[in-house]
């Protein structure tokens, strides 16, 4: 019997839904075994009946529920709760759902301050009212899905990796559980390491790393050892795709683009503190951790929920 799937998106950019489509052909192969009962991005299924005739929100029962996006307002919170009620297994898809994602950088400011800035303070706005008519109230900050309801499976990434979605669905189809192994992007990274830096200052990404595209990966030196801030040591592995039809080496996604990791898959272990761990990693290869600009925001860029990012009391100047 086909497995029933419900998908919902909350506070999102749509990249995680596109990732589901990016599965491509394997998705068409999986389709006969999957019965999508609810998926607003693709399907015409409304919460209150097709013509709004119902009073209660209605999400059909499903074996697997997928939620992308963090929780920013009351309505999204309610949708997350309904999904939890109706779905046997709940997947948080993407870093917004798992850790708040980029929008959770806003957690560094109180809601009032954000509203002031965007709607009222704006010197050029015609109407100085905060829009309110018919709109769901905002929560005080951006929450990850698991801060609102229990989550069974986490598939982070901004966006996540289509391979992981296939692996998770395949496992769930067989009735098995799914978990991404606790490895770091460095564990998966094929670049050459000498355990020390060439010295000097931490470089800005604009200078671009040294590489030769005609050489195999292990001939390129680790970007961090080249002096760039790479979040590989504190970031969960899983973004990599095997090169050459699944035969070649696995290369993490940004590393493959000759760019350092920015940490979009979030911490390796639940509750880890990448800020502290990264400072240690930087120091251990001989770079000066204090040089990292705007540390708190930079090292928590995708993971600002769970109170990792919150407003700081104003510092006296």
């Amino acid at each position, binding site marked *: 019997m086909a497995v029933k799937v419900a998908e919902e998106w909350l506070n999102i950019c749509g990249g995680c839904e596109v990732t589901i489509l990016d599965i*491509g052909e394997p*998705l068409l192969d999986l389709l006969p075994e999957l019965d999508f009962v609810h998926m607003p991005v693709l399907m015409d299924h409304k919460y209150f009946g097709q013509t709004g005739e119902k009073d209660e929100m209605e999400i059909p029962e499903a074996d697997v529920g997928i939620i992308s996006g963090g929780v920013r307002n009351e309505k999204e919170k309610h949708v997350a709760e309904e999904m939890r009620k109706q779905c046997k297994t709940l997947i948080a898809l993407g870093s917004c759902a798992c850790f708040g994602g980029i929008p959770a950088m806003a957690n560094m400011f109180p809601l009032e301050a954000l509203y002031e800035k965007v709607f009222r303070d704006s010197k050029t706005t015609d109407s100085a009212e905060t829009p309110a008519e018919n709109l769901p109230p905002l929560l005080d900050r951006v929450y990850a899905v698991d801060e609102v309801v229990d989550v069974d499976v986490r598939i982070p990434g901004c966006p996540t990796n289509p391979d992981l979605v296939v692996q998770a669905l395949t496992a769930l189809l067989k009735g098995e559980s799914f978990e991404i192994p606790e490895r770091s992007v460095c564990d998966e990274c094929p670049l050459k390491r000498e355990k020390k830096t060439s010295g000097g200052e931490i470089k800005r990404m604009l200078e671009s790393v040294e590489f030769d595209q005609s050489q195999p990966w292990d001939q390129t030196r680790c970007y961090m050892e080249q002096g760039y801030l790479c979040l590989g040591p504190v970031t969960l592995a899983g973004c990599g795709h095997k090169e050459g039809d699944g035969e070649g080496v696995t290369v993490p996604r940004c590393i493959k683009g000759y760019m350092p990791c920015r940490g979009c898959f979030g911490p390796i272990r639940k509750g880890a503190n990448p800020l502290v761990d990264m400072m240690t990693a930087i120091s251990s290869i001989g770079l000066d951790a204090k040089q990292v600009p705007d540390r708190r925001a930079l090292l928590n860029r995708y993971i600002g929920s769970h109170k990792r990012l919150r407003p700081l009391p104003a510092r006296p100047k």
Partner: protein
Amino acid sequence: MHKSIVIDHLCRVEGHGGITVRIKDDKVADVNMDIFEGPRFFEPLVVGKNYDEVAPILMRICAICSASHTVASLMAVESALGIKVSPQTRLLRELLVQGGNIESHALHLFCLAIPDFLGYPSAIALASDHLQEVKMGLELKKLANTIQEAIGGRAIHSVNAVVGGFGRLPTRGALLDLKEQLKRGLEQSLATVDLVSGLQVPDFCTSPDVYVALSSDRAGYSLFGDKILLSTGETKDIGMYKEICNERVVAHSHAKQSLFKGKPFAVGALARMVLNGENLSGQAGKARGKLGLDTVSGNMLYNNAAQAVELVYSIERSTEIIDELLGAGIREEKPVEVEARAGTGTGAVEAPRGTLYHSYSFDKAGRLTEADVITPTAQNLANIEKDLRSSVENLIDQPKESIAPKLEMVVRAYDPCISCAVHLLEVNFE
């Protein structure tokens, strides 16, 4: 008679939107697009950030327009800091944007619009009867991914396009590969035009429109330009974009709405087709005639046809760019060196859904002090309301059940990326 149609949740548009139409005594009393999604407050997120960090954050306003956001953002930074990039960088960026255009149009046509016109509730349902078509859509989407991966380093939210140029350049081999794949893509895009030419376009939403698009900066159709062209005959420099996107906050929406001289206007593929379509050549030029776009205007439901023509255009143009790059030979150049300075600058690009503006100011250390992003959907919202109003007037005699789906069709024709209209940045005209 007093009836009210509430479509609480607009499915199959990217983002969360709803429509409320209030009808009183057989007349439309009120049409509101309710924007439900929480504003994501992107603007405050980049204030205080160094100039090189702005694009990686703001591209996440929308995954489907990520390439356009990236390029518009980089152009705004460069204009503010007085950086001139190489012709090669400009070509590569254009290729990235064309890739994004192919992706977005393929997705919208195959997953959202075609099921709509053929009367299927979803692409999944369409796949059970028309597997070949859905496969074709997914393959076009994959082609677009390959382009963005080759140029931007990742299929979604690219990492290689940076201030001043590119971190890594595509190899000759990768470009040759891409060129091969584009050949197949061209056939598929032409098949898409055939498919779209068979769809009946209803005329219930016809009403006069003002169209706005960038005027192309070279001979031929283009997604780039320094001037804004209006179908009223006026042109403006992109730096003056605020005169066109005079935005207001409306009570029923978390997204601001744009008006020009107090009137709504439309941006997007159809606007580009109306304003620049005669510059199309090759297969795209032929497709434009085939889909009847050399005459029509005022019916937004033709936007889907315009997207199909642009699918052909973007594929042909991508091949042209690759030929140009290969002909000149890829120069191994590093991004232009940047010296931080205070300044203000604007970048504009024709994103899949219409003109996209990013405008920033920096202090002398190169830290951002103000950001303003105006998305195409924000500009279109007022026009969507206008079209809904005229559609309801044309459909008023029909039962409620049959009006509602037609109104959704109007909204979806705009391909609104509501999630992006709602990030809400500071706009307006002093």
